[in-house]
């Protein structure tokens, strides 16, 4: 029985191999150790590659005749240059090699009408593309360095090298390699290799990599992917503004915009840093130790005064919110507050969120307008919660009066008991 099973399995395996071989000589030979030493290329390609799953065969990239060669026992029949066989391109040729299809709008539409086809054009504008095409630097990143070769997965696949959580690790391969990056300079300076480590510690890195928050940026969200390039000084806020739109608009309308340009400061980055962006706190603003404003604005100047005013306004709002929160929490836990105060407190807290954005106008009047409204709401909420807590007293008085009635009834009963007992002979009952 065991033998029969083994023979059947063997025949089945041969049949399968034969079918593959008839369909593609490439797969037939590259799967057989008789012809190649490493068969993983085919297995990787067939297992998950997006091209394989969409019906793209080896010959669509490499040319040749996949109908011949394997059955005849002569691979050269398949890999016939006369039939367009081109093996794999040199590194420098890879972008154009992939672009034969990926820049062909008509061709790509067949798979997904929304797929972009401008990757090559963008790549040519990228630092990588300029190095490759202009600088003839074959070490510059090409398509396969980020996407892989025969196991290319869509970016939405969590196993893909370009899945959002894997992007920092993919860029890190080159950009954290000191030896590899040694010869590269940006604006005359050596390109640092600590971006990945800094990003890991940043609020963006924590959100994307630890919390899996897809709205948090990874490398390509700021630098671009196919057109990867460092944002120039004037376009930092454009990159940050992709997500922090309000902050960008407030900043662009502020007096700092012009001053920054004159001083050559890189917009948002000047205060918040770049790869190591930590969660911004209210200590960044103001005139206390650790505040950023005082790095430029000396005591006695208008800017110094404005910074102090804005910080004081935010602190006042926070104090009012804390007081309201305490009162609402106590009212809730004591069961006299049922949600409206909490809802209104949420509106007051929204003002704090909003003012932390409006502070990028660097205009004390605008900041104070919002904080005042927030303080007003918080104060009303607190009064409501305290009034609810005061209801406990009213209830206690009411219950105290009820208690008096209960005691009077009990006293009347006690008198009644005495009355009926006096007429009862207890011994006669036994």
């Amino acid at each position, binding site marked *: 029985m065991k033998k029969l099973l083994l023979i059947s399995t063997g025949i089945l395996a041969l049949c399968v191999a034969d079918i593959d071989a008839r369909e593609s000589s490439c797969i037939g030979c590259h799967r057989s150790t008789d012809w190649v030493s490493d068969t993983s290329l085919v297995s990787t390609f067939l297992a998950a590659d997006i091209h394989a799953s969409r019906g793209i065969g080896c010959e669509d990239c490499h040319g040749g005749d996949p109908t011949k060669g394997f059955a005849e026992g002569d691979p050269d029949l398949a890999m016939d240059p006369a039939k367009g066989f081109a093996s794999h391109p040199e590194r420098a040729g890879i972008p154009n090699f992939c672009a034969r299809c990926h820049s062909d709008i008509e061709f790509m539409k067949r798979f997904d009408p929304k797929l972009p086809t401008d990757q090559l054009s963008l790549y040519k504008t990228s630092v990588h593309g300029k190095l490759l095409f202009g600088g003839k630097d074959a070490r510059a990143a090409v398509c396969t360095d980020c996407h892989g070769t025969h196991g290319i997965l869509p970016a939405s696949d969590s196993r893909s090298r370009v899945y959002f959580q894997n992007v920092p690790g993919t860029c890190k391969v080159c950009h954290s390699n000191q030896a590899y990056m040694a010869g590269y300079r940006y604006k005359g300076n050596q390109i640092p290799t600590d971006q990945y480590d800094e990003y890991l510690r940043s609020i963006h890195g924590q959100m994307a990599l630890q919390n899996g928050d897809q709205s948090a940026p990874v490398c390509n969200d700021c630098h671009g992917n196919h057109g990867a390039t460092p944002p120039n000084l004037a376009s930092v806020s454009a990159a940050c503004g992709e997500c922090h739109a309000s902050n960008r608009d407030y900043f662009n309308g502020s007096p700092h915009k012009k001053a920054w340009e004159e001083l050559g400061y890189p917009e948002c980055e000047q205060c918040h840093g770049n790869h190591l962006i930590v969660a911004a706190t209210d200590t960044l603003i103001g005139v206390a130790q650790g505040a950023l404003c005082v790095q430029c604005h000396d005591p006695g100047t208008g800017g110094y005064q404005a910074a102090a005013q804005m910080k004081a306004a935010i602190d006042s709002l926070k104090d009012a919110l804390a007081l309201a929160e305490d009162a609402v929490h106590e009212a809730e*836990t004591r069961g006299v507050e049922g949600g409206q105060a909490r809802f209104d407190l949420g509106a007051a807290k929204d003002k704090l969120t909003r003012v932390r954005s409006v502070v990028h106008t660097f205009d004390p009047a605008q900041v104070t307008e919002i904080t005042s409204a927030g303080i007003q709401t918080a104060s009303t909420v607190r009064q409501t919660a305290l009034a*609810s807590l005061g209801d406990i007293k009213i209830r206690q008085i009411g219950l105290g009066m009820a208690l008096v009635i*209960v005691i009077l009834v*009990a006293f009347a009963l006690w008198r009644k008991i005495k009355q*009926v*007992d006096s007429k*009862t002979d207890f011994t006669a*009952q*036994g």
Partner: protein
Amino acid sequence: MARRRRLYKWFDERVDLQNLEKFLSHKTVPYHRHSIWYYLGGMSLYLFVVQVVTGILLLLYYKPTAESAYESVQYIMTEVPFGWLVRSIHSYAANLFIGLVFIHMFSVFIMKAYRKPRELTWITGALLLFLAMGFGFSGYLLPWNQLAYLATNVGTNFAAMIPFVGQWVLKFLRGGNEVTGATLTRFFGFHVAVLPGLTTLLLTIHVLFVQRQGMSVPVSIEKEIAQGKAKRMAIPFFPNYLYRDILGWTLALGLIVLLASLFPWELGDKADMLKPAPPHIKPEWYFVFMYQTLKYVPKVVGIFGFAVAGIVWVLLPFFDRKSNRGEINRLYTAIGVAVVVYMIVLTAIGYLAPGE
């Protein structure tokens, strides 16, 4: 007056009121120096009725899901007219009820009222105590606040230590591996359907037994009567005893009102499964002696010990042959006192010892 008589006659012709009147006028309750303890049964019954009535009122607004349970209790306490009072009464009466049932049971134990022929009354009573604790345990979770959530976590965890069937019991109680909304819905089912059904059945049997057999007179009093040192005395149930009962119920209501006014029952924070448990978390007070014991002995041994003790306690009348013969059994009295002292001391340690 004539109208009242006509009304009486109308009912008498239909339900034989005279017979009931005759029965009530002949019903008596033993009267001696320990007869104060007789009131505890009626008082427990009264508090149970208070629980049923306030429970039904709460049921009109309560929503038994993890998403809305807390909010519905919050609504009861803030928006429903006198909802805060109904909930406070329900919570305080629940605790008083369990406390009284405990005292009632120990008074019956010390007076050996369980002796022949009242073994079945004792068994139904002991089972009613367990049901009362079940009411407490299931009801505590229903507001779905943080303390209740964590206490239920700890409490149900002990079920997992029962040999062989522990995991099954745990899943049965929780409706899954964790305390979730499924547990809440399940506890709600126990609290408002399963336990009230069982309790009503057992309570009816218990009260019928008491009615059928009358109150037990302690052995010591019986001996004094037999030796001619005391006279057998009794008090008419109607109206003398019933007035006393009503006085007790009025005072109990007064006590609940006092507690509800001085210390309104709090709602706490909504349960958050992701929040860590605060240190020294405790179950409800009537479970603390068991919880504390399990800190000193291996948990499996402790749980097995309590299970055996519970069974022995229920079957006690069959072991105490001396009392059944009408003799004073000082050993059993000592055991009863020791159990009470043990429970009080362990509960006190649970609340007062440093680090607890």
